[in-house]
């Protein structure tokens, strides 16, 4: 089912800073080096203290979060998720760029729109694990982290922004949709700049939840490979600064966004990929582009049997053979609510560096894969890149970015 009319073209929106921190390391240089050299961030599961219940799988874990407390003034916000948020904010001069935007536009004109799927639920679960006589330990109970919006609140506090502040939580499309919400808010004049991004951290809920759904591989994930048997979970944080009237050098442009619902199933994609196709077509329409204009597409590509065959078929239907499409989940794992921002940053890196990642760990293409699906990393200058993020509840988002 197609929308009755295509959405109108939007004015490109300037991206003046961006950064990502993943299992590959902190900041853009670590991502660039690992993507170029084919170094994976996945390791055997060593997360948590689950004893005999520990899962035999591979994870994309960020090193050293246990040893990196928040500055003392943020003690009430202590959580693994906020430690990762804080670390990500400190990379690539992002915190300084955000502070400069707050100074230039005024604090109430800078919005904070961030995505997460589980926020700090790891701390809530830890409080439960340490309950005694039906009471939770007070030190954990009083933390300001037991709500999905803790991430948005924390980023606003850490950045000094006082504009509209909200946390998008649409599972694995969360931090792709933040670009769409920010674009609309800036377009409508509700804010002049927006700090967008997302942070999600490993926790029992996602490890054992995806395990219960039988979606976790015992191997490092192999997106689009005929032998793929599930995803590898990861954690990550990343941010981008969007400005309607930039005063600093532009790093890239948001050209279009498309969002849709599968209207099909809570945890399985639409079998014909109708929602995915609709999101991609709307993103292209808002960018005023035909599919053949796109050089690189970072796929959702989780390495679950269902996601990848549906997404591969949708790509084969929409794009010409010249497209370089790939999944970077073999490097980072599936970072859930952070996948949107991480893979948008990878798309921006592809535009800035001409570095087009292949599909790590994969070698035997699924029969559904068209010539667009690339397993080998390539280097060539490109002008336009796209990112797909699809979440539970059939929640889809596609973004189009252009080189500065």
């Amino acid at each position, binding site marked *: 089912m197609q929308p009755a009319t295509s959405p109108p073209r939007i004015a490109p929106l300037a991206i003046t800073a961006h950064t990502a921190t993943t299992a590959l390391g902190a900041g853009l240089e670590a991502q660039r080096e690992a993507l170029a050299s084919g170094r994976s961030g996945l390791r055997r599961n060593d997360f948590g203290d689950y004893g005999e219940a520990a899962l035999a799988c591979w994870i994309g874990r960020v090193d050293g979060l246990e040893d990196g407390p928040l500055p003392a003034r943020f003690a009430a916000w202590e959580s693994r998720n906020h430690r990762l948020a804080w670390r990500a904010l400190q990379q690539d001069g992002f915190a300084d760029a955000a502070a400069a935007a707050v100074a230039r536009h005024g604090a109430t004109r800078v919005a904070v729109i961030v995505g997460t799927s589980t926020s700090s639920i790891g701390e809530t679960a830890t409080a439960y694990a340490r309950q005694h006589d039906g009471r939770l330990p007070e030190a954990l109970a009083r933390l300001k982290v037991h*709500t999905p919006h803790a991430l948005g609140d924390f980023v606003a506090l850490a950045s000094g922004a006082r504009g509209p502040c909200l946390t998008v939580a649409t599972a694995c499309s969360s931090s792709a949709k933040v670009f769409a919400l920010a674009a609309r808010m800036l377009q409508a004049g509700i804010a002049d700049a927006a700090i967008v991004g997302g942070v999600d951290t490993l926790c029992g809920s996602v490890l054992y939840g995806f395990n219960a759904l039988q979606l976790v591989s015992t191997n490092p994930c192999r997106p689009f490979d005929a032998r793929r048997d599930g995803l590898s979970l990861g954690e990550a944080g990343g941010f981008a600064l969007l400005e309607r009237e930039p005063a600093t050098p532009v790093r890239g442009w948001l050209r279009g966004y498309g969002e849709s619902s599968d209207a099909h199933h809570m945890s399985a994609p639409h079998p014909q990929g109708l929602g995915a196709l609709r999101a991609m077509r709307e993103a292209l329409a808002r960018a005023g582009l035909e599919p053949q204009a796109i050089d690189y597409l970072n796929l959702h590509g989780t390495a679950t049997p269902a996601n990848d065959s549906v997404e591969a078929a949708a790509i084969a239907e929409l794009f010409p053979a010249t497209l370089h499409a790939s999944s970077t989940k073999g490097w980072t794992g599936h970072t859930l609510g952070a996948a949107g921002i991480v893979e948008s940053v990878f798309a921006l890196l592809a535009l800035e560096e001409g570095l087009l990642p292949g599909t790590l760990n994969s070698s035997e293409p699924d029969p559904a894969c068209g010539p667009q699906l690339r397993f080998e990393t390539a280097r060539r200058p490109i002008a336009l890149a796209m990112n797909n993020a699809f979440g539970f509840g059939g929640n889809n988002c596609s973004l189009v970015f252009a080189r500065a």
Partner: protein
Amino acid sequence: MNATTLTATIEGIGLWAPQAPSWADYRALVAGEPAATATRPAPALLPPNERRRAPDTVLVALEAAQAACIDAGREPASLPSVFVSTYGDLAITEHLCQTLASAPRELSPTRFHNSVHNAAAGYWTIASGAMEPATALSAGRAGFAMGLLEAVAQLDAGAPAALLVGYDGASPGLLRELAFSEGLLGVALVLAPAATGGRTLALSLEDGEAPAAPERVAPGNAMAPALALFEALARGDGSACLPAGEGRRLRLDLGHG
């Protein structure tokens, strides 16, 4: 650029609380008349077996959403939607945390996929067949104000109408110490561009604190701050203020276009 005023037309209103299980009942309460009461919402959009299994927060969100669409005369499948909840389904959060603490490998797959914050949005799009975008967000006490801004920004970006739903449920057990909310409340609006006339809403962000919302229904519910707007709508005119972040509020002026 400073304070920006945005406008919208309110095409439809939906509300469900145990003390006023419809918008008509809420208006009756405001007018000092008796209202019906109820224990659990039963949205007609869901088949009976799904209604029995669905979390209360999903039921109340769908009930309010469907009522607003009927009031607006809009086909649910035609509307992009914004679902706002402070906490999502706290009964599921409690269940997940208790299971993880005792037997993590016994986590229920259904409870897990129902634990996503966009569960109500997902069930809504599936039940109504809506392929339009659905957003789920959370913003503490500012949630409904932030949802209003996003819905109005969607209209500004060309959407012919948008559905906004706010809902929260009760925190069970130990969770009451961490994330407090009581009762069950769902509120919904169908909004359209202001040019179409009818009941209008002018929105402006400003410094200041919003006064406490009247708690005729669902006292202690985390979505109760939204009731300030529904109280003003029930009275028919005037203005309301919603919390919009530390030291900020969203002023809403009602009128007729």
